[in-house]
């Protein structure tokens, strides 16, 4: 059974990347390949004796259908020095971010790079971060060649300006880890030295009691001064701002614990609570650590720089020269090739420009520009290479301005979390109980008991369990989202998600997928003509040609003569004596026909047969998703595109939804603001730069992306396009996660009441505290983790 299954897979799928093999595949060494790229990688590996790559995993490669990028700028020493980690006169160490790393074969191949090129001295992969650190001899292997070597085997490193700038990306957790280690160390030891007292000491052991006490105090000191220092700082800051956060009762509890322990040990009236102090700090630090866990490979704070290329090709009198973006000045002439991004506002000097602004404006069809027209930065050229003259510095271009718009910047979101809400009241109630208990016993005339009760209340009610319930619940939820390809920036964003009642969608790229296209044909083609068109289109690797081939659904291998393909225009060939021309309106000399989307005309021998229209298709499960959202959420659509698909959208969206089109980025932001002013909690779901302001202004901004490593605007969560249909489950699950936090708050309150009932009587023993604290902590941790996973299962996440 297993054998047959494997055989079937080998027939249908590319040996290298596992993609389905369409039309005419490539064949080599009894293996099938989907494209020339995959076959080339296979050959490179085969020649280098690296066949093992294919043994660790089936189809370990990544599809190589997309064209290779131009890395010639790496020859510029100015750019190169910014990328390398270390360089001396012989070798260089560089760390690349390689998004294609996804399986053990990748690790094996990249760590055996030296077999392919002996000038690679060492390479080390960090799988989780998707990074490879490579040491190489730069005298024999220039950086550029190394990058080409990687690109040739399908592992293109991602080099963006943000890498060059390399700022504060490293989230340094080390101080926290060190604090946890010290707290754990002190916790273990002080517990050991507290045991004799808990078990009761014999007469002769009593002489050690004060010695143990002082040792315990010695362990408590670093915990108080070093491990818990952040809590004191935070409590101080929050008191200064007259806001009570949870760190106030925590810091108070820690301080009182230490003071009472010191008092008891020095006056020799008791054993003190040092072990409770240590365990408390240890646990809350762990909670903090769990909460701080972040993603290595996704950045939520990307700015326009990561969207731009690292370098552009400058046209100088001495010829083409790649320069870094910062060195591009007004008046420079630059060359922008097919699929490259225009880095600065510029005037078109030469060539046919068809600029795809979908990312900037949301408009889905390419805009053609005539010579002398201004082209704004951020567009992507489709078609032949064009020459431009820069008219504005990069930092002042339209795109950059859009990004740096003051209106966008103001919204530093402050999420109101449940814990923040509770802690306002918690501290007040806690202090009230403590003072009440102290007063009661003071009136009763026993000052000792008053002091005992006062401190005991502050100790036992220290909201340790409460401080842990949110981090553990939400980080469990975070990892469940992560598994479902929904990447939420931090734990607070999940709580925010639960409060959302209004969803606003963008159209292009969000509810429609840039990867899936629907194709329509208008006109008529008979079977014979179909085979002619097929014969021409199968020679092209252009995505539109592939779509047409799929649509035609015929097969023939008639020979094609004089095949010519003009990028961005069309193609021409002679099949069976007939001239077949396929391409854009201008290519076929058909005047300017008003059209939407990409249009491909077909002409056979001077006779226009009709045209194909390509449009982005809705994402899978869109209508089901909207149906799921309908009962509980207000749904709206704000698009920067025109309203030609309004009718289709009206069927999908509920009748009361606002469907708005032709909205500029600022208008989008304004719409969100209006919803918010109407008291709604708005979630914006968008993808492009034109949504950037709205994403930031909304209570929760979700960016949809088909390749999470690619650029996405600043947001609170990134959703992989694949998981788009699960969005309603994600929202329902976030509500359940908050429910879990509420429940665990109830549990921790229960423990507090039990503890308090002893504390206010002034009869709490150190043993009691030492048992209650860890038990409540363990209960909360296990309850939250189990409940969260149980809810996730219910939502099939």
């Amino acid at each position, binding site marked *: 059974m297993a054998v047959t299954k494997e055989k079937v897979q080998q027939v249908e799928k590319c040996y290298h990347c596992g993609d389905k093999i369409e039309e005419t595949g490539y064949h080599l060494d009894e293996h099938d390949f989907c494209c020339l790229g995959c076959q080339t990688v296979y050959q490179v590996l085969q020649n280098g004796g690296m*066949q*093992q790559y294919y*043994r*660790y*995993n*089936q189809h370990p490669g990544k599809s190589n259908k997309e064209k290779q990028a131009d890395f010639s700028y790496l020859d510029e020493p100015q750019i190169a020095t910014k990328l390398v980690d270390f360089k001396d006169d012989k070798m260089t160490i560089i760390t690349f971010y390689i998004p294609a790393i996804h399986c*053990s074969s990748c*690790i*094996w191949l990249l*760590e055996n790079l030296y077999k392919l090129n002996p000038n690679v001295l060492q390479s080390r*992969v*960090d*799988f*989780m*971060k998707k990074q490879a650190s490579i040491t190489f001899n730069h005298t024999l292997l220039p950086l550029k060649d190394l990058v080409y070597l990687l690109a040739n085997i399908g592992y293109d490193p991602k080099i963006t300006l943000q890498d060059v700038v390399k700022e504060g990306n490293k989230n340094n957790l*080390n101080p926290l*880890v*060190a604090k946890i*280690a*010290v707290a754990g*160390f002190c916790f*273990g*030891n002080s517990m050991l*030295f507290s045991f004799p007292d808990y078990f009761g000491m014999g007469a*002769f052991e009593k002489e*050690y009691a004060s*010695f143990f006490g002082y*040792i315990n105090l010695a362990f408590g000191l670093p915990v108080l001064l070093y491990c818990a220092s952040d809590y004191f700082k935070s409590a101080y800051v929050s008191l200064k701002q007259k806001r009570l956060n949870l760190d106030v009762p925590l810091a108070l509890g820690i301080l009182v614990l230490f003071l009472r322990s010191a008092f008891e040990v020095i006056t020799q009236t008791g054993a003190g609570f040092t072990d409770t102090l240590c365990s408390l700090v240890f646990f809350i630090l762990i909670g903090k650590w769990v909460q701080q866990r972040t993603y290595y490979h996704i950045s939520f704070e990307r700015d326009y720089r990561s969207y731009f290329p690292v370098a552009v090709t400058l046209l100088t009198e001495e010829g083409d020269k790649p320069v870094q973006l910062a060195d591009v000045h007004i008046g420079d002439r630059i060359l922008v090739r097919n699929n490259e991004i225009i880095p600065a506002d510029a005037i078109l000097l030469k060539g046919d420009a068809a600029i795809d602004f979908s990312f900037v404006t949301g408009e889905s069809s390419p805009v053609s520009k005539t010579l002398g027209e201004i082209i704004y930065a951020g567009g992507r050229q489709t078609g032949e290479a064009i020459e431009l003259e820069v008219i504005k510095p990069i930092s002042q271009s339209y795109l950059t301005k859009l990004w740096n718009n003051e209106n966008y910047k103001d919204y530093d979101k402050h999420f109101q979390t449940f814990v923040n809400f509770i802690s306002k009241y918690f501290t007040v109630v806690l202090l009230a109980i403590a003072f009440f208990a102290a007063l009661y016993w003071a009136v009763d005339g026993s000052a000792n008991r008053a002091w005992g009760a006062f401190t005991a209340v502050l100790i036992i009610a220290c909201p340790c369990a409460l401080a842990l319930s949110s981090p553990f619940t939400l980080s469990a939820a975070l990892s469940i989202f992560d598994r479902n390809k929904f990447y939420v920036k931090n734990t607070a964003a999940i709580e925010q998600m639960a409060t959302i009642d209004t969803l606003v969608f963008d159209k292009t790229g969000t509810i429609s997928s840039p990867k899936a296209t629907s194709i329509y044909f208008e006109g008529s083609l008979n079977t014979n003509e179909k085979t002619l068109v097929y014969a021409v289109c199968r020679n092209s690797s252009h995505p539109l040609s592939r779509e047409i081939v799929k649509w035609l659904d015929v097969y023939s291998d008639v020979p094609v003569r004089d095949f010519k393909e003009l990028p961005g225009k069309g193609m021409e060939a002679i099949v069976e004596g007939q001239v077949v021309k396929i391409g854009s309106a201008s290519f076929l000399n058909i005047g300017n026909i008003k059209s939407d989307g990409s249009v491909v005309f077909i002409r056979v021998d001077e006779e226009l047969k009709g045209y194909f229209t390509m449009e982005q298709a809705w994402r899978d499960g869109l209508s089901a998703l909207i149906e799921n959202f309908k009962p509980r959420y207000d749904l709206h659509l704000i698009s920067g595109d025109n309203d030609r698909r309004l009718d289709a959208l009206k069927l999908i969206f509920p009748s009361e939804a606002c469907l708005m089109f032709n909205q500029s980025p600022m208008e989008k932001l304004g719409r969100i603001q209006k919803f918010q002013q109407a008291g709604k909690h708005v979630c914006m779901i968008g993808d492009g730069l034109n949504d950037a302001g709205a994403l930031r202004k909304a209570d929760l901004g979700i960016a949809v992306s088909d390749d999470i490593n690619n650029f996405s605007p600043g947001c609170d969560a990134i959703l992989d396009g694949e998981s788009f249909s699960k969005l309603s489950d994600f929202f329902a699950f976030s509500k359940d996660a908050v429910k879990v936090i509420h429940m665990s708050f109830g549990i921790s309150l229960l423990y507090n009441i039990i503890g308090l009932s002893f504390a206010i009587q002034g009869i709490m023993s150190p043993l009691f505290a030492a048992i209650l604290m860890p038990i409540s902590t363990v209960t909360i941790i296990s309850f939250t983790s189990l409940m969260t996973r149980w809810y996730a299962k219910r939502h099939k996440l």
Partner: protein
Amino acid sequence: MEIMYILIGCSVLLALVFLCAFFWANKSGQHDDTYTPSVRILFDDETAEEVEK
């Protein structure tokens, strides 16, 4: 029973050694990548006949 003081001193010292060892390991980056080595160890040295997934 004066030996108790020495014993306790020794045990705390030993524990401190382990704490320092942890700090050293953390600082030298041993906890930076906790996944890749687990895969790396499974690779065969050179061509073997059957390789498990």
